[in-house]
């Protein structure tokens, strides 16, 4: 079946649609003649201009979901549209906390397969997908064979966001289906962890720290080095899970995907789930005391040494300039 209509699950923050939403709209334009967005919250009308600019002719607005998590209501609304025959031929979903909830619930509710960790989409009579495996060492190419609409969960930075110069999207309401107990979880308080400096996924330089730093207090070296390089400070999952730094610093499978000009990995061994988040960096510098660490397999410059010596020396050298 040819792909004629794609829906993009459009996430937004207070600053507008997320970057990955614009990336998915851009990708969808190359795959289907009709691209539409599905959005929720109170900012959809305000975001219709940007969504339209990137290619959405219509934004299906689920409306305010209050203190609910998006997974159940958004999935139910899309499933109801599919059941009524008003659905698309394919659905693109961001790989994000809420995106994965929406995709999983939609799959179960509509009894449709969900394909995840997609980094490439090729159109034609049927969609083919690319999925990196084994930390990105190999790429699986697959043909979608399921019943339409397929649910495609795409990783950030798989496509560049490019404006299509489109007119504002028409806003059309989309009704939530019967939720039963599935929508019973409620957000009580939101905690925003403030960051300073450039955004992690947009900075030209990212300096990340891992377990090799030894203890939480040493992360200040990473922040200082990042600041000197006008970059952003990142972290491996290991030290985020250990509570050394906030989740918003995490680079990898479950964190941010980064593709900076330079990625500087300090005391990071290079676990599979970290590599998929930074392997696309233009240049990679690694400092690690273990010369067999997997991170050296992707490094353009690898320093086999003690981060507690190399990083302070690097900071001094940069300050002296």
């Amino acid at each position, binding site marked *: 079946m040819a792909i004629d209509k794609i829906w993009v699950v459009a996430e937004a923050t207070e600053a507008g649609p997320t970057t990955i939403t614009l990336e998915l709209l851009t990708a969808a334009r190359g795959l289907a003649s009709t691209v539409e967005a599905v959005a929720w919250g109170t900012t959809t009308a305000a975001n219709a201009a940007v969504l339209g600019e990137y290619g959405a002719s219509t934004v299906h607005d689920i409306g305010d979901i209050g203190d609910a998590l998006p997974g159940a209501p958004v999935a139910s609304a899309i499933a109801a549209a599919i059941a009524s025959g008003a659905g698309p031929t394919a659905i693109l979903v961001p790989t994000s906390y809420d995106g994965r909830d929406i995709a999983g619930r939609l799959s179960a509710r509509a009894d449709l397969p969900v394909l995840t960790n997609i980094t490439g989409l090729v159109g034609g009579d049927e969609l083919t997908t690319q999925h990196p495996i084994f930390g990105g060492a190999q790429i699986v190419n697959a043909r979608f064979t399921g019943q339409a609409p397929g649910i495609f969960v795409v990783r950030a930075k798989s496509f560049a966001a490019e404006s299509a110069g489109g007119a504002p999207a028409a806003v059309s309401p989309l009704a939530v289906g019967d939720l039963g107990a599935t929508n019973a*979880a409620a957000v009580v308080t939101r905690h925003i962890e403030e960051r300073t400096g450039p955004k992690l996924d947009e900075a030209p330089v990212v300096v990340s720290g891992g377990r090799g730093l030894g203890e939480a207090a040493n992360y200040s070296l990473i922040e200082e080095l990042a600041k000197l390089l006008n970059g952003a400070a990142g972290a491996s999952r290991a030290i985020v899970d250990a509570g050394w730094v906030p989740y918003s610093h995490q680079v990898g499978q479950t964190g941010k995907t980064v593709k900076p000009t330079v990625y500087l990995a300090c005391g990071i061994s290079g676990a599979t789930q970290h590599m998929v988040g930074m392997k696309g960096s233009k240049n990679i510098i690694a400092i690690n005391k273990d010369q067999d660490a997997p991170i050296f397999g992707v490094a353009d410059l690898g320093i086999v040494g003690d981060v507690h010596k190399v990083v302070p020396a690097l900071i001094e050298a940069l300050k002296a300039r």
Partner: protein
Amino acid sequence: MASSAYIELMNVVVCVKQIPDPAAPQSLEPGTNTLDRSGKLILDDSDAYGVEMALQLAEQAGGGEVTLVSMAPNDETSGLRTALAMGAASAILISDPALKGADALTTAKVLAAAIKRTNADLIIAATESSDGYTGTTPVQVAELLGLPSITFAKSVSVDGSSVKVERQTESGYDDVTSPLPAVVTVTAGVVEPRYPSFKGIMAAKSKPVEILTAADLGVTTGQTGQEITSVVEAEARAAGEIVVDEGDGAQRIVSFLEALKLV
């Protein structure tokens, strides 16, 4: 499934995956292009956190049982024995050649059908497995069971008939609550898993493991959404310069950054 009355005994189901040792080289099976699972399987490290969380919640509630649910080929139980040795009471294992290469939705149908046979107040899973990284299965289970879910928990507590979770977000975390029963996925930061004691390891050998097929659970197999057409090597990065720091490491990095005009 338990009803949502006030819970005195805390029965927790933990979905666990038994995977090839991530430290060993991994490969795809020629022909099927599915992950080679023919070797020894171990408890996914990501699941040790969920098992520990479940044990602590049951202990805090003053009683209740932790039941494991797992799907694996070849009646594999070695990973389950690890979790039983930590303190889980019993396990349900779904092992069926018909499930080879099962997609996330089929896996979720199998797990959900098995969970229905239990009296679960809370269902815990990892946010994603360490081999497949699909990350949708627990939420699919929740939807199939008609339950609420809270993913990416970095903290979990149970108060009467509700669960309170600190849920990781793009910009920080949210405090989220849900009535029970519910599905919660946990990150590796949620608790520090215990090591099985010798006594636990010995006790695990005689704990009950019920082995079922997909047909026993009434789940139809064979549905997948994709056909793998090829597997190719990713574009390799050019080999880098790896040097041992002789006190000149920092200067080498400065030179590298200078060449890129970043300093």
